């Protein structure tokens, strides 16, 4: 059972206080998008063995959505960060690079 630090209220939250909210950094495609763009937005998800970026909600705590960067194979957590961003912060990317030098995920590396 995971423990993730909520970057909004500082609590090391038990997984039972959290709710998984799927892949992070999805870009919304609306009415003017092509069928392919919209299809990918709705259905195309990453499922890596290794570095992954996810959304979580501290649902039994402060109620905030946040992001977590972690390894799906070892469950190592590289960091959690605020939801109000379009990409992972540099310090978290650096931390991942130090441990998983050749990582890539979506457009990030």
């Amino acid at each position, binding site marked *: *059972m*995971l*423990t993730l630090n909520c970057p909004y209220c500082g609590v090391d939250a*038990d997984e039972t206080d959290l709710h998984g*909210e799927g892949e992070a950094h999805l870009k*919304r*495609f*609306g*009415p003017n*998008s092509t*069928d392919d763009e*919209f299809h990918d*937005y*709705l259905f195309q998800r990453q499922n890596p063995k290794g570095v992954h970026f996810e*959304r979580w*909600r501290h*649902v039994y705590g402060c*109620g*905030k*959505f946040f992001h977590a960067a972690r*390894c799906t194979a*070892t*469950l*190592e*957590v590289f960091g959690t960060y605020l*939801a*109000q961003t379009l990409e992972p912060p540099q310090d978290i990317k650096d931390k991942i690079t130090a*441990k998983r030098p050749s990582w890539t995920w979506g457009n990030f590396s």
Partner: protein
Amino acid sequence: MSTRLANTGRLVNKNKAVSFTFNGKNLSGFDGDTLASALLANDQMLMGRSFKYHRPRGVVASGAEEPNALVNLGTGPDFEPNQRVTTTELYDGLSATSQNHWPSLEFDVGAVNKHLSRFLPAGFYYKMFIHPRPFWKYVYEPIIRQSAGLGKAPKTRDDDAYEHFNINVDVMVVGGGIAGLSAALAAGRTGARVLLVEQTAHWGGRAVVDQPTIDGTPAEDWVNTTLQALEGMGNVTVRNRTQGSGVYDHGYVLAYERITDHAPDVDAPRHRLWRIRAKQIVTATGAIERPLSFAGNDIPGVTLAAAVRDYAVNWGVSMGDRTVVVTNNDDAYRTAITLKKAGLDVPAIIDARDGAMGDLIEEARDLGIRIAFGKGIAKVKGNKRVTSVGICAQAGEGAELEEIACDCVAMSGGWSPVVHLWSHCGGKLVWDDAQAMFRPDAERPPLGADGQGFVTTAGIANGHLFTAEGIADGFAAGRAAAKTAGAKGKAGDAPAGSDAAEGAISPVWLMPQGAKQALRSKAWLDFQNDVKVSDVQLAAQEGFESVEHAKRYTTLGMATDQGKLSNINGLAILSKSLNADIPNVGTTTFRPPYTPISMSSIAGPAKGDLFQPIRLTPISDWSNANGADNEPVGQWRRPYAYVRDGETVHDAVNREVKNTRDNLGLLDASTLGKLIVKGADAGKFLDMMYTNMMSNLAVGKCRYGLMCTENGFLSDDGVVARIDDETWLCHTTTGGAERIHAWMEDWLQCEWWDWNVYVANVTEQLAQIAVVGPNARKVLEKLGGMDVSKEALPFMQWRDGKIGDFDARAYRISFSGELSYEIAVPASQGRAFWDALLDAGEEFGVMPYGTECLHILRAEKGFIMIGDETDGTVIPQDLNLQWALSKKKTDYLGKRAHSRSHMADPNRWKLVGLETLDGSVLPDGAYAIAEGDNANGQRNVQGRVTSTYYSANMDRGIAMGLVHNGPDRMGEVIEFNKVDGGTIKTKIVDQVFYDKDGEKQNV
């Protein structure tokens, strides 16, 4: 015979007798006994029957690894099957019965299976019972279920209490032997927060039985001193009768405390499940002795050598008068020495090694015990009890050299470290050839959230079988764990132990080495599941080469003991059969819990009336006192109908339906979701949330709105009210309140975080009551206060004000087609307001109504219900709700999806009303059949029923459903399936059945 010894028994109080029963027989033991030692003291060696062949079985171990001696404990609500006698502490009045036999333990009809064992080899069930297919369900399984199986499931509800306990610690130490104690001591001295648990009632593990010297004193003294020191540390908690049962991700550990199992009269929870977050875990879980595989090694009286010693030293019980010791290592010599010193006969030590030197061997020899090197046991003789052993050369094929009479065989095949907790979360093992064991590989520990190892292992569990290195290893592990966890203090000096010099072990996986089939088919590996050496060899021969496959094919290690005694022996046989090395074959996966834990401890307090939270409205108490027949709506319980004396539920529903249309009905609508949405961008935000326009709603007015997911599917609906310039109140469905609140927060926090909008869920702040029917206005006017006339409060508007004494917000909205007000008051006054309405409404024929009446009234009007007309695949267009899809808005959630090809397909099933020709009620969910069959040979369908009711107002069945091109087929008759196989002719009609022009609500 097995009997009580006069001068030993460090754990029993011989001045305090304890009475108990076994299979109805009254027996007596001592305070401090386990059920195992007490049964042995009464010469009750036969304790159970094996799973498959129903062979007689006695106890083979002295602790948690016991596979054989499982009993039913207790009666009535205290009944529990499959309890190990070795871990059951004796108490006055204990009642145990043996299991898996018929008609009796002594005479078991099922034991004929053993004569058929030749015909019941590995994989027998798979081979035999596969054809013909239907026989499995109707013939084979029922018969096998009758004859096989362990204890019976309890029939009475368990009335004991159970609880959880959540803590965080720096260092958790599992195992209260000398390694665990010294680990806890080191960690405790550094100031770290430490929890030390021990699964048994006693501390010191093996050391207090074998009494090596620690810090110059006998081990028992050191254990007592250390325990006292630990108990005196404020930062250390020690807990016996508590098993570290599972290690999980990120340092999560479950520990299983048995609080009153040994003292059922104590008023406390029976079990407590500790849910621990540990920064570091030290597993000092010891080792389990391995049996030797020789013919007849399952006959009662054949026991692990250390267990024989435990019974003698701890509980003062001899397993037999004449004990032959058979071993491949020096440790078993301690058993011979112990027994000899207790005055018992040890006719021989059969040592499979060609020769060995060591202090213990010398001591045994000095005591005059015969030592036979290079020998093995060809065969154990006896039925329900060992009578003798046949001796052979270990290097041979089993030719018997001599026969030694005995009633106990103490066997030792070496020791397997308990690596379970290390392995639960991914810790890897290495094969230690010199000691013939798998032990934890310190280089490959389980990894925690920081990517570093969070489990270390210490003492015997780490492969350090000797006192000096074990206790030092424990201390070092505790000190290192505390440091890693951040503790700053000094651990001080490590305790020092000393050992007798021992010779090396020589692995023996089969005895004798060249045993023939006749012997191999009587050499047990898994005692509980009746798996023998020959079965594993057959599995290998038939191609089940993976250890995981061989396990499942033979059922080796799949019993309740999870192979604690059998896995390594079985694995060695498998590797030999495959001509592979043991480490290349590998082990099966270790999964928690270490031993079975009670289901109730996992549930904790969640049983009986705390099984799940039941949500109550301010009016629930009144409803429950006035005939409410409740239905679950999420965790709410809403009255389905208010049933009066002499009525059926159906009668009550019909009465409520008619009365609401004719007079006055009250509905507790408090469960409806209510969300306040406020801010400069609230209008813009709601325009994204809803398919229709909300930003242009005038203050004081209400509008029905639809919400879709990004997939375009309907997700929720409800009436939205504009409260002021910046504030809207959004009603959601009862089940939607939390979900839609989370949905709004998601978009506000993660997509449009620069929009100025706040949302608050005020669902439970307000009690909301629907006042419905021709007399609705009259009752409100009687209470007095705000003007609720047609002119002052027109349809789809709301007003704040007083109604009677109450601060109220009245919405003129209707889900029934009647004149209707929904009135919200603070929840603290909800009950008083309800009472006031009932009082005032009496002269107007007021009756509360339930959810079924609500459904019928809305269905009569053709209103949709989320969850009935929608199922996660339905779009607004399917329900003829195009009018609610704004064309002015460039975007809203779900808009893009509605232009996807399948959504825009003109051939979708669409909502219509349905009337059976004979007036009957259509079955819920029934399908409309179409011509022909589909690719799977099933009848084609062209629609389905989404809502169906008996309407008392129409005196006939009414329904709505989704039908292929339905709205274009008005008047057409189609057929719906019935459960009995027939069909019902049904006409497609307009979905509004009652008051088509809406005259009743508009008064």
